[in-house]
């Protein structure tokens, strides 16, 4: 009889150990590691020089003199250089009538060259990929871009694919969120590949509506492919680990929803409208995001100090405007800031709100200068700058902050796992940054427009 009790006790112990092991495994696999990322660098014949820009602008015969002036003003004050890339069809003069082939070629170049380089560098076989996420906001053919990639790289039949579209410039954290949730839901070791880019060629605006012409001046070709995994065995090779992710969507407000929206102008031409209420929406979304982000990022002491200061200010102002985000500094919990390169004004405003120094906003300003607004992949170019400048040391925390149509503000905090020094797409030009002067070459040629 005693023997039997002993046996049952042993089996119970075995169950307990197995459960403990499962729980521990599950816990370990819930981490999300960034194994590596690859920035897309288009070929140099697609660089948009002042001369080429001038040619493209003048081709639109519908533009009157005030329109031209406005356009040039935007370009001059944009903070972008002559090194940014445009789609081939636009450079060749086909911006008015882009074909499906043009759109596909532009994306094939972006997605496949980034993925080829990524697979080569990480030595990952396409057949090992378990999860594939593609994010391209303004172009979604059938079959989807994920199917296009599965076909090209002959991925497995049970690969889980998700094609996100219409999610705007803040979609990078959304794609990371999707993968992170998938890791939590399926605790087996999973390898996920995420590719993000934007489609410019079929969305070039050829009308005269000022709010829609801004897109033409700011959006440029770019993309990024990165590998995420929850496999603890790959931790040694991983660059960063995801600490937290906060998504904010203020689309409930009509004003916010309509401030960045694809619409048709009076002549029926489709363009991306960037409204005057956009900065206000951005501030609101940013404030809400910070409210949820700060407690997860800042050490308790900083939080306490901030809360005290905020309460005192409110008490002193006797119920004045409770702007929760003003004056908060995240520098106690974050060393590097990857800000979405929406435009010079956006970077400036966010930098001020977070109390950032010139050194902190330099990566974002330089990324805008070198690559333009590459939509959702912009934060990765900013990260690439930091890495190329060898700023990322082990233990540092990196905050990616992006804004996008909807209106959304999404942020994610990464922890750097080892000293990073890969130049990547910045390797050939990093030595020239930051430039002595940020005088825009467009300013030299078209600066008269500011005085006119």
């Amino acid at each position, binding site marked *: 009889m005693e023997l*039997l009790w002993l046996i*049952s006790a042993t089996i119970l112990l075995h169950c307990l150990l197995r459960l403990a092991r499962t729980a521990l495994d599950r816990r370990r696999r819930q981490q999300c590691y960034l194994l590596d990322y690859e920035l897309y660098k288009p070929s140099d014949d697609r660089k948009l020089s002042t001369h080429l820009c001038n040619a493209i602008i003048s081709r639109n015969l519908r533009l009157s003199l005030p329109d031209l002036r406005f356009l040039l003003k935007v370009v001059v004050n944009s903070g972008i250089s002559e090194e940014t890339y445009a789609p081939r069809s636009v450079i060749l003069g086909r911006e008015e009538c882009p074909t499906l082939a043009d759109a596909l070629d532009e994306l094939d170049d972006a997605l496949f060259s980034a993925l080829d380089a990524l697979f080569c560098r990480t030595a990952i076989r396409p057949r090992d990929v378990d999860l594939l996420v593609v994010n391209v906001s303004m172009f*979604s053919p059938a*079959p989807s871009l994920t199917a296009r990639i599965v076909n090209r790289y002959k991925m497995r*039949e049970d690969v889980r694919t998700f094609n996100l579209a219409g999610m*705007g410039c803040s979609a990078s954290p959304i794609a990371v969120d999707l993968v992170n949730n998938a890791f939590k839901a399926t605790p087996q070791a999973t390898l996920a590949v995420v590719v993000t880019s934007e489609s410019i060629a079929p969305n070039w605006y050829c009308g005269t509506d000022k709010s829609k012409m801004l897109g033409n001046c700011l959006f440029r070709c770019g993309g990024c492919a990165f590998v995420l995994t929850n496999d603890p065995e790959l931790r040694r090779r991983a660059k960063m680990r995801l600490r937290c992710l906060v998504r904010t*969507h203020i689309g409930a407000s*009509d004003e916010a929803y309509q401030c960045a*929206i694809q619409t048709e102008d009076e002549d029926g031409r489709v363009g991306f409208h960037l409204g005057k209420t956009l900065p206000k929406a951005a501030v609101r979304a940013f404030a809400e995001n910070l409210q949820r982000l700060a407690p997860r990022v800042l050490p308790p002491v900083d939080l306490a100090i901030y809360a005290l200061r905020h309460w005192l200010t409110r008490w002193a102002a006797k119920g004045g405007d409770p702007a929760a985000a003003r004056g908060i500094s995240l520098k106690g919990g974050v060393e590097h800031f990857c800000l979405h390169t929406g435009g010079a004004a956006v970077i400036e405003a966010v930098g001020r709100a977070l109390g950032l120094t010139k050194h902190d906003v330099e990566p974002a300003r330089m990324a805008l200068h070198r690559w333009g607004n590459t939509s959702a992949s912009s934060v990765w170019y900013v990260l690439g700058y930091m890495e190329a400048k060898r700023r990322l040391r082990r233990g540092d925390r990196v905050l990616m902050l992006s804004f996008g149509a*909807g209106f959304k503000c999404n942020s994610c905090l990464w922890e750097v796992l080892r000293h990073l020094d890969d130049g990547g797409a910045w390797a050939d030009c990093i030595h020239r940054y930051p430039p002595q002067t940020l005088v825009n070459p467009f300013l030299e040629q078209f600066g008269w427009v500011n005085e006119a």
Partner: protein
Amino acid sequence: MPSSSSSEPLPEFLSSVKLKYVELGYRYVMSKLVTLVLFPVMVVLLLETLKLDPSEVVSLWRRAQGISAVNTLAAVFLLVLVATAYFMSRPRPIFLVDFACFLPAPSCRVPFATYIEHARLVPFFDEKTVRFQLRILERSGLGEETCLPPDNRYIPPRNSLKASRAEAELVIFSALDQLIGKTGLKPKDVDILVVNCSLFSPTPSLSDMVVNKYKLRSNVLSFNLSGMGCSAGLISIDLARDLLQAHPNSYALVVSTEIITPNYYIGKERSMLLPNCLFRMGAAAVLLSNRRRDRSRAKYRLLHVVRTHRGADDPAYRCVHEDEDDDGNSGIRLSKDLMAIAGEALRANIMTVGPLVLPVTEQLRFLASLVGRRLITAGAVARPGWKPYVPDFMRAFEHFCIHAGGRAVIDELQRSLRLSSEHVEASRMALHRFGNTSSSSLWYELGYIEAKGRMHRGDRVWMIGFGSGFKCNSAVWRCLRSVATPVEGPWAECIHRYPVDIPEVVKLL
């Protein structure tokens, strides 16, 4: 079961699953190892206890009372800990609280005569093209009550961004309003939102449009899937399931639709005209939950989602493809191999679904048949009469919802899976009444089964979707409570007229 000679080779897909079954068997044994060992021990213990005299029982009880409180407490604590850990490690159940489908207004109906008249009046089709479309309609399996969006009926059709958004608002908001009415859902309670629409994705996305209209919370997790074809409804369910596993106590809204307005093909290529003839307006909204208190009011529980992607195979990838014809008109090109490719994709999907859903007896019988045949053929003597065993899927499911892609797709699946006409009735009738509504068609079919009063507690439903890529996705649901015949919904007014007999060819002219 079809009879076959002993020398007939195993059906194609069966031969490729043999290793999978061996692997399955091993995994089954290993995962149940502890139970398999423990069970006999417990039985023996029980028998030993029963053999005890009453006096021995009393002495055992006295001994048990003698054990110190600490030890007893420790033992109880340990048991509770183990039980809790066990229950928490299991995946959260995903419940389908309810779903709603868009019912188009009668003014949107496009009987065949209307369709053909419109095709004749628009300037881009010549008489040959019109006749071709007529022949497609005759054999399509569609009825006279399918609906197209109002802007498609203009001459020429309006396909502006504004018109497309109008259709999206109409179908999506209508389905969501119905769902909110049925479930009492408060928009502020929605934690997760997934919208899928393959051929229309503006920026901001349709999911942002829903957030705006219903004033969802600022921390809602919204996703918008696009370009993923007619099987995207199940992909959205898969995504919602992942999110619900990661976030306890949450509601997920899944909206599946296809927007027809911008996709009217105005060229003459025959392979690109089929979508004009088959695709119709539709949308479905589904409320999923992982809250335990919703178990009592939920209709279904999600058991499995299995996805198969055949994109690596070039013909499969190219069989449903967006393209521009020689005149620059864009449309969806369907290849002639579509049926064969669909059949292949289904077989690949079954290989994964089969082991998950077939009853153990079926699987063991198949395994035994496999092993038996191997042993016999290893002995180099082909024993006559040992036939290969084909698993019977009708024993695994009570209801089948097959994507109503077209009559040919349903025919092909009925043949492949050896289903009776009752099993495919929901698909055929949904195709007849609503046309090919793409990713939402599965929900119209489920609505049909419910409207017919056939859904009972414990019934299992197999949803199979196909789509461009080429993908075949399956979802398996179990019904949690017998569903009363709904008094509202897309089928409420017409269910009494169904099923109808759909002839092979409807003579129109």
